[in-house]
């Protein structure tokens, strides 16, 4: 389970760093269903939440897990769940519900090789598009992608803050490698936390889905207060009651998308390594970005102007970054543990710049050598 040193440094598993971050971020409710390679997050929650007055409940399946998380969120709790791709497949209907009722929550997906049961203990990055489009209908989500144990901690805190700020489900999209590996990280005494904006209008004037025109995120009132909170997965008006009129529904769906997509530049986190003069740009995330960095170091030592753009936010997709680097790079290489899910998104934004894939779906991480040989082929 990982141990903690006395000081700020801790030698932790990625999954445990996620759990520690959830506690620091103020999470008080976890509902989940065991699944490899994410189960340590549930175990960590079951050990630690009751100590802090919070609650852990193991539900009968993932449909129930995400349902309970959404319910707890609407009671005012910071709530989270952890699973892997097969579990997200089961959660997908209610992930759309979370988008629709605007329930802040964090869903950790420790990706394993799919499809189906696939390779339960092996890492993959095949759920990138699932996290964006798994649930039906137009909507928007946020997904953050750590590539180290330190980032498991930092980005999980960020995920809770984004969830609260935008009243939306946020994915922490790990992979079996990053989730299961151990590294020494530093855990700050305190982290910056956000809580959803609370309604302060007179109770009789409160409308649960009223929103300011400049922000589009409704102010929240938890169940149990004088301001009557009405969550509704069906088309609803500002009062939360059913409303199926075309104009209202059009506005609702657009607002749910715009409140996130309009803030893309604020939400998109990334790390640049030697990008300034890069002619060959590696764009990657998660465990594959680690190998990408090693490949960049090799290339630089061999006189090749290579750089790495390590995406920390994959949804909303950082179109602006890809467009920016497409002005500069001669070639883009996208290493990933899938058959081109990330590369496809990059291609949409890269204009005429060739986008070359380094793909793998064997359940084995990409080695730096596999990326290096792609660079060698091209330069």
């Amino acid at each position, binding site marked *: 389970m990982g141990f903690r040193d006395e000081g700020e440094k801790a030698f932790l598993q990625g999954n445990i760093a996620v759990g520690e971050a959830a506690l620091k971020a103020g999470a008080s409710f976890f509902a989940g269903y065991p699944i490899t390679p994410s189960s340590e997050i549930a175990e960590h929650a079951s050990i630690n939440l009751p100590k802090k007055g919070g609650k852990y*409940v193991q539900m*009968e399946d993932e449909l129930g897990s995400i349902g309970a998380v959404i*319910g707890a969120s609407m009671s005012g709790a910071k709530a989270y769940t952890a699973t892997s791709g097969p579990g997200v497949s089961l959660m997908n209907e209610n992930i759309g519900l979370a988008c629709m009722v605007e329930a802040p929550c964090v869903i950790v997906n420790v990706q394993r090789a799919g499809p189906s049961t696939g390779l339960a203990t092996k890492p993959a990055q095949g759920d990138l598009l699932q996290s964006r489009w798994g649930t039906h209908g137009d909507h928007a989500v946020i997904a953050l992608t750590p590539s180290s144990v330190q980032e498991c901690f930092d980005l999980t805190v960020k995920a809770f803050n984004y969830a609260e700020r935008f009243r939306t489900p946020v994915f922490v999209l790990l992979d079996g490698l990053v989730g299961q590996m151990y590294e020494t990280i530093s855990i700050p005494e305190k982290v910056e936390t956000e809580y959803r904006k609370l309604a302060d209008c007179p109770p009789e004037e409160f409308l649960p889905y009223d929103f300011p025109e400049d922000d589009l995120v409704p102010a929240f009132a938890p169940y149990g207060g*004088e301001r*009557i909170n009405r969550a509704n997965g069906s088309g*609803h008006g500002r009062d939360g*009651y059913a409303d199926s009129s075309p104009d209202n529904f059009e506005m609702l769906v657009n607002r749910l998308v715009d409140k996130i997509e309009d803030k893309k530049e604020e939400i998109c986190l990334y790390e640049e390594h030697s990008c300034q003069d890069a002619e060959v740009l590696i764009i990657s995330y998660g465990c594959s970005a680690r190998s990408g960095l090693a490949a960049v170091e090799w290339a630089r030592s061999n006189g090749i102007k290579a750089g790495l753009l390590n995406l920390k936010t994959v949804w909303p997709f950082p179109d602006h970054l890809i467009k920016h680097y497409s002005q500069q790079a001669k070639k883009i290489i996208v290493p990933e543990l899938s058959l081109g899910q990330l590369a496809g998104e990059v291609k949409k934004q890269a204009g005429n710049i060739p986008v070359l894939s380094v793909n793998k779906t064997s359940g084995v991480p990409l080695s730096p050598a596999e990326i290096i040989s792609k660079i060698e082929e091209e330069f």
Partner: protein
Amino acid sequence: MKYSWKKYLKKDALPSMWCAGCGNGILLGSIMRAMDECNFAVANTVVVTGIGCWGKADDYFTTHAFHGTHGRAIPIATGIKFARTSLNVIVMVGDGDGATIGGNHLIHAARRNTDITVIMSNNFNYGMTGGQYSGTTPKDSLTSTSPYGHVEDEFNISALVKECGAGYVAKGTVASPRKLQKYIKKALARENGFRFIEAITSCPTQYDRYNKLGKPTERLKDISSKTVEIEKAAEYNRDELSSKYVVGEYTDLAVEGYLERYEKIQQKFN
């Protein structure tokens, strides 16, 4: 005082979307009167619904509400209650919603003794989608997807929930709304554990019509004539009971609720 239950009713939402002669309005009235008898504060009550005709019930409440997804009202209610334990959480599901697609959640919430009340409107079919058979549709009945007679056996859902360990389980019918109200009141007044009310109701547009059970008033009489008190059920054999509605209190036990047990664990760390 006589109509003080109307504080729960969203009057401007009337008339309801339910068909003329549907029993759901009777059930709604029984629930609101029982809530009033229990002095439930509007601001401290959350109505949680799923999808279906009865899933629209939240539209008529002035309380807090969560209109969720098909079959998932119970998990949503679980999260609502566990995160804010002082709330009165009432779940309203139909037989398709609660006993069929959401059946797994129902039995586990009963086993767990989740501290909520579930009120199931059982009209023996999926009314809203056109009258298809559900997990409570009796064998041989006609529905839009059992046009030659239903080949499957049905759940006695109250008996099932009882066996799962729920603290309180009662079955009534919309033909006896006062008795229904009494059961609901008893369920709502409990502070702990899982409470389940099954209300047998009419469906004039679909199930009752397919099965030629008569016009709404005739169907209410039909329901009454098929009602057997649980204490007398032993006098009938299995085949005879299959065409009856066995009503009454299936179980009424003092149980520890989930929260009571979990709070004991939390207190270890205080």
